[in-house]
């Protein structure tokens, strides 16, 4: 059978090293340029806020639509095993969940821990039960008029179409077993998409047209309900625009820069080593054992 035996020879490795380092450096620069075009305003609000408070922001540049508005939590382990597993996707798709099947939602299974299908929480589980319940409304400070942020379209379309369906009949909002009366509530769906890391932000509203103007003050009215102090978490709000690579994510840019530089350094040292103390390939003198 034929075949090829590729070798890692200097002539193949060193050019590749240069090539990759060039690609990485170019990408790094592109990334930094792109990132610099993203505007982001983030402000923590949990410290000085009682039940209700206002926060004022003032963009230093025009922020063109789409402008995304997020709430951001830290030190919040949505990815904790106990938390993440405590939900029933079946129930969220609108099917009835029997008490027996609700064991996946442990410890939030049924009202008063009654062992009956009727008493199973709608929806059950820690994730739904701990839903973030602060609310925000954004206004121009001077006019006290609401800016055109919409809370529609913040959830994934695929979730709205397939993953989250209201049960039939709809849960009674007043029943003690009801945790969320509308499963298709987009804030609910966004919350149910758990974050993989303890610091995360979730989309709250989008400015689809228009802009946040430069040097104009905007007030965010906050209803502060969600407790974070007991576990040393923080809450912030955040406005951000996006480019082709998303938000102000400079980590990836730095990674490309560092790797690009490292590869360049390696390429140069390999070249020097090869030119100064290189080894001739395929020379029979290396097969010295045959001569003994």
């Amino acid at each position: 059978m034929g075949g090829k035996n590729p070798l890692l020879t200097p002539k193949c490795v060193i050019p590749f090293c240069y090539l990759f380092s060039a690609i990485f450096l170019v990408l790094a620069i592109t990334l930094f340029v792109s990132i610099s075009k993203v505007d982001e305003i983030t402000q923590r609000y949990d410290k000085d806020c009682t039940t209700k408070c206002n926060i004022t922001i003032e963009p230093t540049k025009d922020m063109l639509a789409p402008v995304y508005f997020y709430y951001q939590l830290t030190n919040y382990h949505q990815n904790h095993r106990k938390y993440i597993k405590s939900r029933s996707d079946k129930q969220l798709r609108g099917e009835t969940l029997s008490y027996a099947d609700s064991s996946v939602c442990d410890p939030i299974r049924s009202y008063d821990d009654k062992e009956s299908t009727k008493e199973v929480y709608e929806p059950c589980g820690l994730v739904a039960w701990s839903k973030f319940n602060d609310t925000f409304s954004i206004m121009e400070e001077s006019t006290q008029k609401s800016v055109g942020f919409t809370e529609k379209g913040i959830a994934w379309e695929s979730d709205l179409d397939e993953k989250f369906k209201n049960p039939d009949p709809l849960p009674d909002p007043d029943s003690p077993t009801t945790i969320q009366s509308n499963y298709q509530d987009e804030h609910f769906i966004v919350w149910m998409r758990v974050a993989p890391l303890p610091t995360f932000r979730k989309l709250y509203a989008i400015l689809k047209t228009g802009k946040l103007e430069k040097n104009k003050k905007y007030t965010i009215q906050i209803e502060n309900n969600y407790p974070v102090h007991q576990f040393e978490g923080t809450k912030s709000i955040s406005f951000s625009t996006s480019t082709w690579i998303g938000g102000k994510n400079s980590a990836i840019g730095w990674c490309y820069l560092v790797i690009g530089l490292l590869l360049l350094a390696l390429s140069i040292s390999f070249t020097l080593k090869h030119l100064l103390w290189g080894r001739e390939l395929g020379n029979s003198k290396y097969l010295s054992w045959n001569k003994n």
Partner: protein
Amino acid sequence: MWRKKNKETKRLSFANNSLLNERYVKNQVTNSKYKWWNFIPLNLWEQFGRFMNQYFLLIACLQLWTEITPVDPETTWGPLAFIFLLAALKEGLDDLNRHKGDKKANERMYHIIRDEEPMDVMSKDISVGDILYLEENMESPCDIVLLSSSNEDGSCYIQTANLDGETDLKPRLGLPNTASLGTEEALCSFKGVVECKPPNPDIYVFDSRLKMQPDDSEEDILSLSVSQIILQGVHLRNTEYVYGLTVYTGNQSKLGMNKLTPDTKWTKIDKQINRTTLFIFACQFLFLLIFGITGGVWKSKTGKDKFYLYYPEDERWFQPLVIPLRFMLLMSLMIPISLKVTLDICKYIYASLINWDLEMWDDENEMGAHASNTAISEDLGQIEYIFSDKTGTLTENIMEFKKCSIFGKSYGTKHRNSSALEDPELLKDINEQRPEVILFFKNLALNQSVVPSYPETDSDDEDDLSDSDEEQEIIYKASSPDEEALVKAASKLGIKFTERKTDLLTIVVNKKPIQYQLIQTLEFSSERKRMSVLVREVDSRQIFLFTKGADDVILERIRDGQETTKTIKHLERFAKNGLRTLLCGYRTVSEEELEEFLKDFKKANNEIENRDQELEKVFSKFEQDFILLGATAIEDKLQDEVPQTIRILREAGIKFWMLTGDKFSTAVQIAKSCNLMPYDGLLFPIEGADQGEVENSLDKISEEVQNLDKNFYIIVQGSTLKIALGEVKHKLLNLSLQASSVICCRTTPQQKAGVVQMVKELGKMTLAIGDGGNDVTMIQTAHVGVGIAGREGLQAVRASDYSISRFKFLRRLMLVHGRYSYYRTTFLAQYSFYKSIFFCVIQLTFNFWTGFSGMSFFNSLSVMTYNGVFTAIPIFFFLLDKDVSEESVYLNPHLYRDSSQGRFYNKKTLFWWFIRAIYQGVLAMVMLAGIYQGRGYIYPSDGSGIDNQLLSMTGFTIVIQIQTFTMALETKHWTFYNHFIIWGFLVFFYISTIIANTLPNLEIYYLLFRAYSDPIHWLSCVLINTIVLAPVIIAKYWSAQYIPNRADLVREREVYYRSRGLPINAADATILNNLNSTEGRVIPAYNSSDFGINGILTPFKDCFGKSDFEELNKKDPLTTLIIENIQNDILKKKTQEVRTQRELDKKKKNVGLNKSNSDDSSNSDSSTTASSTTEDEDDELNN
């Protein structure tokens, strides 16, 4: 019932009396292991007997506990069930076939006589004591004692192919007393009783007795031996029918008793892999503790403050165990569940590759290599010591009568290659009917166990003889090639053995038939080392005892005062020429002596317990006082390419020892001619008749070799070896290990095995190769047993792990198949560990962000498909990988050291694989977390933050990419299949994820569409792949470039040639081809006083001058090519010149030109010495 409890001490088989035989089992044969109802429990029980299966079962059971399982239980249950099903299916199918075979055998109909009634019964209903009727070509269903046959004398022929694979016909002979029971009526009234040993597995011994009537007295008891027994499974041939009394039935037959399943052999690498598994197991436990405790602390310190985690105030008792157990399950993947199955399948494929290898196909025998043991191919690559038999293994075992010495006159000794058969002296002496010469050849013609047969019709041979001497060639069927050669030689010289009847031998001397009554054959055995026949010349009533055998035994037994010096001198010359020698003698026997002998013989022959020893005593007493007739010398040619093979194996760093039954000088001669002992070494014989002497001898040699810078060799005789293997074993061992080679001559099978055992006990990997029954113990003792399907039957082959048809194929079997198998298995095992650890490291790293809660980063589907599909299947195509080409291994046998010294799998290699797994796992996870950190990441088209599932799938995609590139990086030999599978699986991954994406019920619904449409996804793929793979590539580049190992250098050279459009190693191969014959020459006889002859083999590399390629490299490819061609031409011319020169030299010296090509190509350095030696020798012989 009480009888069953008592151990059977002797078996009695009563004819026509079924009541007395009832206690014995019927002839039901069962080879099957299971019944339909116990298959499932029994098979499961067997499979769960293995530790790893128990471990996986525990893991699978723990996964049923939802509180702790990180992923769905199917991830373990699925593969576990699959693996169990696969194993059970294989077992089940095998057993089904056995059942079918059993049923067929058990339901075959046979005609028997029981209780004086003839009847037809199924095979399974035959019982002990039945008289069985067998027709020609039928297979015997049980062990029977031959009573009578269609021949009047009660003889028949059988073929024992089922038992030992031998296809020659063996005679069996009913006792005269029973041979007369020719009819069914007579047999119906036969009341004989056979008394024999309880069922036993010894197929070569059947010492038992027959009473014609149950109440016969002791004197009338007849003795039975192997020549009366027809064993289960043998076929009746050339005989119309036989009757026999059943003695052993069913699984108690000799064949049945031999069906013990041998212990499974474990290869060295298997054991290493097991140790690694245990190490990983320990690591797993350590991690479990560390993460379990950290998780517990986090929970009580931090976790309880988090309202959303809803930790209750009081815990259940098992709660503290939950987190450690979660980590245990998370890490259970570290030991790949599929490893055992993967390796088993690979081993099976290695064995198939051996079976299919056409390079090991022998046209002459129409046979290829065969791996009977499919599980130990890797061991072929790890051999440190080879123990080889001589006759039939290194040599052809085609014997040719070459020379003889009769009453002090030698024939056929004109020169080395001349044959006595063409010696005019001898022809003249025969024509003159010189009595001693005629007697000598009569001995050869009569003293044998050969069966003559005629190829065509049964026409009267003696008439044809005068007309067409040439055409009517008799075919002699012999079990020993030596005998065949001797009988043939006698026949060529006109003393023709023509017919063997039961007790009548006919020879034709000078065209006159002479008949001899065969009174007794005193058979050959490797202990007796001689064979004698006692015959009476029918016409003259004279009784002769002819003997032939090894020199030492015969010389002990000749009449005092004979002139033997000349014969002994000739004998020594013959032996030094590498010929196999025998001494012949005879004496006449008087009627009184004969009577006494027959009486002693009968008495000894009736013994059941110690028959062999008793017989030997009687024979030994009788075989005395011989008149020495002379000596015969038979040539056994070396097999082709034996010297080259041995040279390559030795260059590969393997110690090659020769263990032979031949005598000292023959062994030394063969060792010299087959490169086992080149001329530059010194030979030290170990001598001594008792322990003290042997010890002295050992000490003396040890002292001498202390400051020796030359190779030295040790030779030891069987008798000395026996002593040396006792108390002073360590000294022998010490010395042997320093020696370049050890030659043991005059050894018994047990001693051969003892030597192998001695080396094996040191932990060295051993391989034994042989072709005959006397090698079986040695083959079974060694780690790897190789049998040569030769002319001495198939006993060795049946006992061996591998069978080949020529010795030279050993080179390919070990250097190519062994080395590749080892290379491939080590990669597969280490890669399997690596990819599993890598995966687990990611899981563990992720838990630094989850509060050490034992969360799985990957979802169930990923976990299952990672180990079960995406990494499990592509690695099979690593089975095609070659680190260097086959030709290169032959040209650089040193490469074998890579595998024999375990360079591919050791602590160092494992360390680097583990480091790689940890580095890559940690870095990949940290990078992912950095890029998808909660603050900065925004999905560009809709502004969503990162989702856990999305990150998990992104991570999984990158993991698959890393593994694809890792496999690509590790593949050294790319074929279409590698490309297809490696890249094909990446494509397959993308296709299957896209399909899975469209299924709304799956967790990953729509996720990957989002991922793939996000530029950050692709940027992180490139980034993370580069970060984890670049150090690997750089390390590989650096080590291949600046600290290259052997394989690296050889691979470079291959590429060098390819880049110039030449076949691999073209130039090297040319050199080798041109000089191959030089290496393979047969070296002329050596001088006994001159063990250190200075004919040094010129290494072929020197012929090409010093590193020519250095210059070549600097020029452009075209010029290089031309120069190479020119140089090749020059080389050819040079070689031609050397040859012509040599031939001229020879002609000048007027030494008889040899026909064999081997001598023509003697090395120029040694040719002068060599030919002059030949000359001297021949002159002496002529005297």
